[in-house]
């Protein structure tokens, strides 16, 4: 349950020195994709942060998002973040089952009315669909969601299914699946899409709430700008090959072996906004493009129906065009994000496709 101990007190009680705390703040800044110049503000806020109660609801999903999150649980640092939230209901992770589990959810809601965070993974059968497609404890997903978000401070939709409908909503959408934001209209929502999302992005959003007591800056698709503010293409280490016109034409040719751009092999990097190119996967080990495969665009709406994973983007589909337009609008919002002024300059230059010398880059 949420308690009144601040994170600063809890760390000191565990014998963590001030140096250890500063290191923790540096790791937290990096995890939240904030610049190191924000570390003093993070330190100040973390001193005073209190444990928020979190209720995690899993609906039409594959548990991949939970798998991703639990793999991020590196001891000590992210562990301290997890000690700092109170995960009061998660039907895959909790020990309680049956009526006890549902009682835990109701108790957490009652004790933290108006203050708890609801994390949702999975889409739900829409209000007009047969509720029998997905139920928990005999309660339809729709009823459980609407009942649980009533007293929530905010809702975090984790994974593309919760954020945009994802795989259950792919044509022909037999269960009438809808995204959480399609039915929850009166609460602040953050979308953390990805199939699954990068674990540090999930923890980063929760850490942002823990540290600052509010939700991060969002783009037009309600994704946190810190992680989804730039396209995979703009942050890709293979981007220089795209600029030089050096492309892999199939997965066995010279270009593939030499690590050239995968655009013509269907890479969706140019229309996909996510942090894979910098945070990478497997604790920073690699990511799809570094492993030789194009981006699938899994953090974008309707990516399953976007025209084929191996078709180059020059073959337009209606979904691609719509998403790209939304993404450009999202880029324009970057300018107002606190502490991200530097990124705004770089993305501005990228949008206008100016030629920038390496010397000028440093002045950003």
């Amino acid at each position: 349950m949420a308690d009144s101990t601040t994170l600063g007190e809890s760390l000191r009680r565990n014998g963590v020195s001030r140096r250890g705390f500063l290191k923790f703040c540096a790791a937290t800044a990096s995890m939240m994709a904030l610049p190191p110049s924000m570390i003093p503000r993070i330190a100040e806020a973390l001193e005073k942060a209190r444990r928020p109660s979190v209720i995690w609801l899993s609906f039409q999903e594959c548990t991949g998002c939970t798998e991703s999150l639990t793999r991020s649980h590196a001891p000590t640092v992210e562990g301290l973040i997890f000690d700092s939230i109170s995960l009061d209901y998660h039907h895959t992770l909790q020990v309680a089952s049956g009526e006890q589990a549902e009682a835990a959810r109701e108790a957490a809601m009652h004790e933290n009315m108006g203050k708890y965070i609801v994390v949702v993974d999975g889409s739900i059968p829409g209000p007009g669909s047969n509720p029998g497609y997905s139920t928990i404890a005999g309660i339809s997903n729709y009823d459980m969601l609407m009942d649980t978000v009533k007293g929530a401070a905010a809702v975090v939709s984790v994974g593309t299914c919760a954020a945009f409908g994802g795989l259950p909503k792919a044509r022909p959408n037999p269960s009438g699946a809808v995204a959480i934001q399609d039915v929850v209209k009166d609460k602040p929502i953050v979308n953390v899409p990805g199939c699954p999302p990068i674990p540090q992005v999930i923890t980063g959003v929760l850490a942002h709430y823990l540290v600052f007591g509010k939700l991060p800056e969002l783009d037009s698709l309600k994704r946190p700008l810190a992680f989804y503010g730039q396209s995979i293409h703009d942050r890709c280490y293979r981007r220089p090959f795209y600029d030089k016109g050096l492309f892999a034409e199939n997965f066995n040719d010279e270009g593939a072996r030499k690590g050239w751009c995968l655009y013509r092999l269907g890479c969706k990097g140019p229309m996909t906004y996510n942090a894979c190119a910098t945070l990478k996967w497997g604790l920073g080990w690699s990511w799809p493009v570094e492993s030789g495969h194009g981006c699938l665009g899994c953090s974008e709406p309707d990516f399953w129906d976007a025209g084929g994973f191996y078709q180059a983007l020059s073959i337009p589909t209606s979904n691609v065009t719509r998403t790209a337009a939304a993404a450009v609008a999202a880029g324009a919002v970057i300018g107002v994000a606190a502490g991200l002024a530097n990124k705004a300059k770089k993305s501005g230059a990228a949008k206008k496709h100016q030629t920038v010398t390496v010397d000028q880059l440093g002045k950003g």
Partner: protein
Amino acid sequence: MSALDNIAVRVESAGNLTRNALPLLHEIRHALARLAESGESTAIDLRSIPFGPGDEADLLAALGTGEVTAQLQALGESRITETSYPGVWVVDHYNADGQRIAFQVEVTPVPQILAAQPADVADGLQRLEAALAELAEPESRPASL
């Protein structure tokens, strides 16, 4: 011998093809100029930079190693190294499991995390005073010591 051993694998280095370390070196040069002119410190989060294979090694090789190397043991190990350019530091934080949790270039006279922190100094003073008080009253200690 497994069937995999029959496949000839030729490893080709891609590190020097992307040369993503170069713009970063220019960014460090601008930061160092600011430090020299106005004393302004800069920190760059290297984990937010899109590195390809070999780029990190290229950057660290280009920066070289300078006069100071420090190890910090707090929530796991940290290595703080001055590069061959005085005032340019590489700060590399690991957790207790040896996983990297932060990786920065700091352009500053001395990274803040190396300095003793006021809260720790106050705590140390208390402990030293307590130790001295105990030394001044040897009769209160157990006879066996």
